[in-house]
């Protein structure tokens, strides 16, 4: 389907005196020639002939849809936008919940990460062994390390689970996490809105990812 949408100018009037009408149109012809003429009420053959001779387009007794005022339009727009925003926020929180659970390209590494090794992972990473001094880890997704870290780790995911590691260099979303905020067990470092929240993980909490 091909369609076009455009605005036209309309001149709407009703005729009381035919002589007056014709003389008015004659004088203002240049103004009206681009308009659609809408005539309400009775339309005589005489006027019809006159309008045809001037090749003006006219219609009789028709109700045209009228545009609303600018203010009304703006009000409606803002209302729509707010609804849209609310929808987006709901969708985002749903997605966040989902991606908390979601394992994006989960990689599991069950070997000691020795000095000089660099691991760059686009997705989630689960490390089941030590990260030694001089090693570098980066994960764009969530990061869980179950043993002591002495190297440098960087995580840009929703959360990170690590032990207190005084020798490590831990960076979460560009913020350095000081080991004094971490307890001597696994800790969940989480991004909630604009804040980084750190909570210890208790052994009874089997479900690490909520």
């Amino acid at each position, binding site marked *: 389907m091909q369609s076009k949408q455009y605005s036209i100018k309309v001149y709407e009037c009703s005729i009381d005196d035919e002589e007056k009408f014709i003389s008015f149109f004659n004088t203002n012809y240049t103004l009206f020639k681009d308009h659609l003429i809408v005539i309400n009420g009775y339309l005589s053959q005489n006027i019809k002939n006159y309008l045809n001779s001037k090749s003006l387009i006219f219609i009789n007794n028709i109700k045209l849809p009228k545009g609303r005022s600018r203010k009304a339009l703006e009000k409606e727009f803002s209302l729509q936008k707010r609804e849209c925003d609310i929808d987006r926020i709901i969708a985002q929180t749903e997605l966040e919940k989902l991606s908390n659970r979601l394992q994006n390209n989960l990689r599991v590494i069950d070997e*000691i990460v*020795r*000095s*000089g*090794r660099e691991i760059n992972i686009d997705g989630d990473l689960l490390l089941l*062994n*030590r990260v*030694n*001094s*001089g090693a570098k880890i980066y994960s764009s997704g969530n990061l869980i390390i179950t043993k*002591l870290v*002495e190297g440098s780790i960087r995580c840009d995911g929703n959360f990170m689970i690590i032990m207190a590691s005084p020798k490590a260099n831990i960076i979460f979303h560009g913020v350095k996490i000081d080991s004094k905020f971490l307890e001597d067990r696994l800790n969940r470092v989480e991004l909630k809105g604009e804040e980084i929240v750190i909570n210890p993980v208790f052994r009874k909490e089997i479900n690490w990812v909520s």
Partner: protein
Amino acid sequence: MGIVIAVISGKGGVGKTTAVANLGLGVAMNGKRCAVVDFDIGQRNLDMILGLENRVVYDIVQVMDGEASLKQALIKSKVNDNLRFLAASQSKDKRVLNSKKVQKLIKELKENFDYVILDSPAGIESGFEHTIEFADAAIIVVNPEVSSIRDADRAIGILDSKSQKVKDGGEVAKYLIINRIVPDMVQSGEMLKSDDILDILNIKLVGKVPEDNGVIDASNQGKPVILDKHSIAGQAYKRISARLCGKKIDMKDVEVTDTSILKKLVGIFR
């Protein structure tokens, strides 16, 4: 077919060459045919520690280039008939090594000896890589200090990725020697504990060697400390050599000295 053991450390000055000399002699004393090879091309030291300085005629580079046969180049130890020594070249540098030559040499050594012990250069450059390339096992020598451990950790990482055995899908056996332990410092917490080191490096411990002033004198005289019956380091190397030969010997806790027991007693009476 013998077994090839590379002795590595990453950091220099931790006692690799001393360990090679003592373990070579120790293994030979256990009745095994043993060859010790100095791979530290350009910085030859092992000949001095073994006291064979003036007997070197041909070196490892000449053997690899075919200028001398292996039989001609191997030097017999003065103290033990089972021990042979192959010297490094002092004039060349490690760039003369290449994988094919090294492989050929190691194959030949393996056919003639029960144990081939390679003394690796410090660092992780090409000389180190050639030493570990065809090794069946590695002994990692560390001192109980952080820099030595980090360098050893890096060296193990390279060992696990670049050795031929790993490339063929196998695994290089790795054993740890903690050298120059000062028991008093370990007890006062100034020196890293063995357990912490084992936690970090995560490899099997084959022995602990305490600090012993006799080692320097022994090296200077060209008589490895293992020959000294009263030396505590010598005894430690004896135990490690026996373990390498498959004997079951309990790990001696060198961190606990007699003096510390005395101190404990003093503590009780206070």
